[in-house]
């Protein structure tokens, strides 16, 4: 019970920050705007999707995945900054459960992520993307995206705790972008060289993008020769999320408990 109370108090801490820096909310909207234009219209005119004439229908789920991916870098930078400023020391000197600080961080990321996803979906509707499979599957897709964002926030929290240095974390943050790009989020994997295709198809974010597409009824279902995660995308996404949480929740708690040693 205390874990929940503490976790919620820490979630509020992260959300309160946003209230004083509404600019952050604008920044959260800015990147998707640039990307939707860049991919949807600039690159999109040159990318062909087998079995579909509408690249933007294919692209938007990739964009949602990219949005979920930002949780990793933002949690990493936030946590590293807390460490550098000594806020973590104060938290660690309190009788809080060791898991509640990472819990608050990821909780806030989850909530901010819901807002980011709403913004992206509105953009999607504007540029012609639609969910086609009815309310149930659409909600399932949204739930899956939020679950993944939450999971990636745990990974980022662990990295932030491990890195400690705020500037190193800030320098590493942009690297998470190519990480989400080496997947089928924006281009199908069919035409890739075998080694790259293998990497991309086993990238957890590819499973997520494929699952999102199938739940929303958007084009781009991979062929039967694709790797297992892409032919069973929803199951694979859930497995990936479960696996990552099973690894990074205890790891973050342990790292938090020992951060000052």
């Amino acid at each position, binding site marked *: 019970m205390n874990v929940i109370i*503490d976790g919620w*108090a820490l979630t509020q801490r992260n959300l309160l*920050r946003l209230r*004083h820096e509404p600019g952050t909310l604008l920044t959260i909207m800015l990147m998707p705007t640039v990307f939707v234009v860049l991919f949807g219209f600039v690159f999109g005119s040159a990318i062909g999707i087998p079995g579909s004439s509408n690249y933007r229908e294919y692209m938007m789920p990739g964009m949602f995945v990219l949005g979920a991916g930002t949780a990793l870098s933002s949690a990493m930078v936030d946590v590293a900054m807390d460490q550098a400023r000594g*806020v973590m020391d*104060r938290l660690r*000197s309190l009788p809080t459960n060791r898991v509640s600080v990472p819990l608050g961080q990821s909780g806030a990321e989850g909530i901010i992520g819901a807002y980011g996803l709403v913004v992206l979906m509105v953009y999607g509707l504007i540029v012609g993307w639609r969910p086609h499979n009815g309310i149930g599957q659409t909600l399932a897709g949204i739930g899956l995206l939020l679950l993944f964002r939450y999971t990636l926030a745990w990974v980022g929290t662990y990295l932030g705790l491990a890195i400690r240095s705020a500037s190193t974390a800030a320098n590493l943050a942009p690297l998470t972008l190519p990480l989400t790009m080496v997947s089928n989020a924006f281009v199908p994997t069919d035409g890739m060289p075998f080694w790259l295709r293998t990497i991309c198809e086993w990238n957890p974010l590819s499973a997520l993008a494929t699952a999102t597409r199938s739940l929303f009824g958007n084009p781009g279902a991979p062929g039967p020769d694709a790797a297992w995660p892409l032919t069973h995308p929803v199951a694979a996404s859930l497995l990936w999320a479960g696996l990552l949480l099973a690894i990074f929740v205890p790891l973050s708690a342990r790292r938090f408990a020992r951060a*000052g040693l």
Partner: protein
Amino acid sequence: MEESIIYTKALRKQYGDVVALTGLDLAIPPNLVYGLLGPNGAGKSTTVRILSTLTRPSGGQAVVGGFDVAREPGEVRKVIGLAGQDATLDDKLTARENLRIFGRLSRLGSRRARRRAEELLERFGLAHAGNRLAGTYSGGMRRRLDLIASLLRAPAVLFLDEPTTGLDVRSRMEIWDTVRELVADGTTVLLTSQYLEEVDQLASAVGVIDHGQLIAEGSPAQLKSRIGSHIDVVVESTDHLLNAMAVLERLTGHRPEVDGSHIAVAAVDPVPSLPQIVRELDASGAVIRDVGIREPSLDDVFLSLTGKTVDPAKPVEAPAAVA
């Protein structure tokens, strides 16, 4: 050890090749301010970090409020408060929000957290600035806010790691007043400092730490009387030197040193009072331009205890998250 609220035995801490604590023995009774005095790099922060469960000792034992810091850190955290060298609040939240969140985390319940925060803000003169972002606070205000945050739960033991280092005189005085109030409440305070004056003002017992070891312990008065003070006299002209020197030697029992028209003499026990010095000099016919008693500094403490001054060559290390 029974009556000690903070107790350490052969406490050791090693960071790679650096030995920060070489075997620290402390036995601090409850309800007083204990001053841990030492130069930069002596091991003060390391001691505080171990006692507040932020860092694990490499060897030895440490007990706070009856709980072993290594075996029962959770219990230790319930009885301590910590205000460090750096302010440790969220710059992007207002003072009130910070206190509300940290109050919740201290298991106060939201109503009580709010009430306690208001009470402390009022008491420490920050109520008017409570809705400002902590990041906009001056150095002194931040330290006070930090102190308030560590007091939310009325801890039995409060650790203050160099609470006034880097502050201006006024802010320093305000922190001192705060600490005095705390002891009146019955809190045990472990205060670290680089200033002899500070521990003299606040602490009733002092430990001098150097290279991770306790090298002296006692009351501030004992420590000071061991080291003594300096009397400085400037005579009007060198004609008056001999008279003045004779008076000073008679009063202190020490041989004065002369530099031009400036006379300095050590005064250990007893230290004559300023009016007495002036009267006697006057009676001797020496015309003086200036006279003063200089209190001993940390440098003097070290000179007297170790025969050397605080090592100026020592790097002033400050790993951001640690020092």
